[in-house]
């Protein structure tokens, strides 16, 4: 076996981003054809206008591999130089085998370690923290972190409370060493969990996804601004120093409420949910990638990532945009 331990300690940063957005678009009007709902009702309560739904033959692995390949190309990193692949997902069709080894093989990352991580919608920020620590400690030099979800397999398409919310997709980031002498571009993670409220978002065995919307809304709008401020403090900055705020795209109303409480007055706030729905672990990297594609953030900008979801779990960190 090839030893993967790197040499001296490195400072981690984001090197590249990649997105996979399925081709098929499902609008609110499409849903209203079979559900007792309408476009205005959905937009008022969620900010969602449409979502992407994966094709029948696409899955977590294929979407993750596509987003990751794009991120490697964006970073200018060869797959052969990847030491670790972390797939954040909670929507694999079966638990064995995991997605990450197949993603690594699809990429040609032949010497990479690989594992899946399930922290539900918060998974990408957990994976990013693991990746940053691996680079910092020398365990890995280049890490693929990808959030990938096929929620459409797990949604009850007859339940208007949840079917309107979710979409499919994958978003990836490459974490690697900063140029010599540069500081870390991935700030300390602030994370937490509350298993006492596991029942707020769950999938019963053999069943479909259930969500206590008002309770989740209340938790998110009252608790997460403190997490966001703590992540800024851990990075040694004020919320007003942020160029971008990229919260998990769960519901535009949650995004607006948390952003208002955070007071990141100079920050662009990610709003990918309108076209994408809630893509769980994929939402933060998809939203960040889109902000960059649209020129609303640029390399070196400080962005606060904040993800939260079932578990309950949450995690956030400040990153320098690549």
């Amino acid at each position, binding site marked *: 076996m090839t030893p993967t331990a790197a040499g001296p300690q490195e400072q981690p940063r984001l090197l590249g981003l990649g997105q996979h957005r399925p081709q098929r678009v499902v609008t609110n009007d499409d849903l209203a054809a079979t559900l007792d709902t309408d476009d205005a009702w959905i937009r*008022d*309560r969620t900010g969602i206008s449409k979502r992407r739904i994966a094709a029948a033959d696409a899955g977590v692995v294929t979407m993750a591999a596509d987003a990751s390949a794009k991120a490697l190309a964006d970073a200018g990193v060869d797959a052969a130089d990847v030491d670790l692949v972390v797939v954040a997902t909670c929507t694999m069709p079966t638990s064995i085998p995991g997605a990450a080894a197949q993603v690594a093989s699809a990429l040609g990352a032949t010497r990479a370690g690989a594992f899946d991580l399930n922290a539900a919608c918060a998974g990408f920020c957990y994976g990013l923290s693991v990746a940053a620590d691996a680079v910092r400690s020398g365990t890995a030099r280049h890490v693929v972190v990808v959030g990938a979800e096929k929620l459409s397999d797990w949604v009850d398409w007859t339940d208007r409370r949840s079917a309107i919310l979710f979409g499919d997709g994958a978003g990836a980031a490459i974490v690697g060493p900063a140029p010599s002498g540069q500081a870390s571009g991935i700030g300390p993670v602030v994370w937490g969990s509350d298993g006492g409220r596991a029942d707020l978002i769950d999938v019963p065995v053999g069943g479909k996804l259930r969500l206590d*919307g*008002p309770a989740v*809304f*209340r938790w998110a*709008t009252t608790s997460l601004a403190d997490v966001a401020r703590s992540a800024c403090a851990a990075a040694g900055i004020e919320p007003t120093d942020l160029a971008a705020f990229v919260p998990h795209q769960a519901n535009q109303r949650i995004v607006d*409420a948390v952003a208002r409480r955070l007071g990141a007055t100079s920050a662009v706030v990610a709003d990918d949910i309108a076209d994408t729905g809630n893509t769980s672990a994929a939402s933060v990297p998809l939203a960040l990638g889109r902000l960059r594609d649209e020129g609303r953030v640029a390399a070196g900008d400080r962005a606060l990532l904040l993800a939260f979801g079932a578990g309950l779990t949450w995690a956030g960190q400040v990153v320098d945009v690549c």
Partner: protein
Amino acid sequence: MTEQDILTGLAEIVQEITGIAADRVTPEQSFSNDLDIDSLSMVEIATAAEDKFGVSIPDAAIDDLKTVSDAVSYIAKAGVPA
């Protein structure tokens, strides 16, 4: 704090969160039917009322607050020291 004080404070919260003019928030008004306030805004109003009045309004109680008067009464009772 009188019920009139609570009504005034509650109306300010409703205006801040929903943009509905405070003088429209009168006791007989139904939150959903008259003021067109949805369940998520009700959660935000309840949360803000907890902070403002120092009371607890659990999720289960929010469903029972149909009218402005219901909410004022609830807050008045909840605010009485045990």
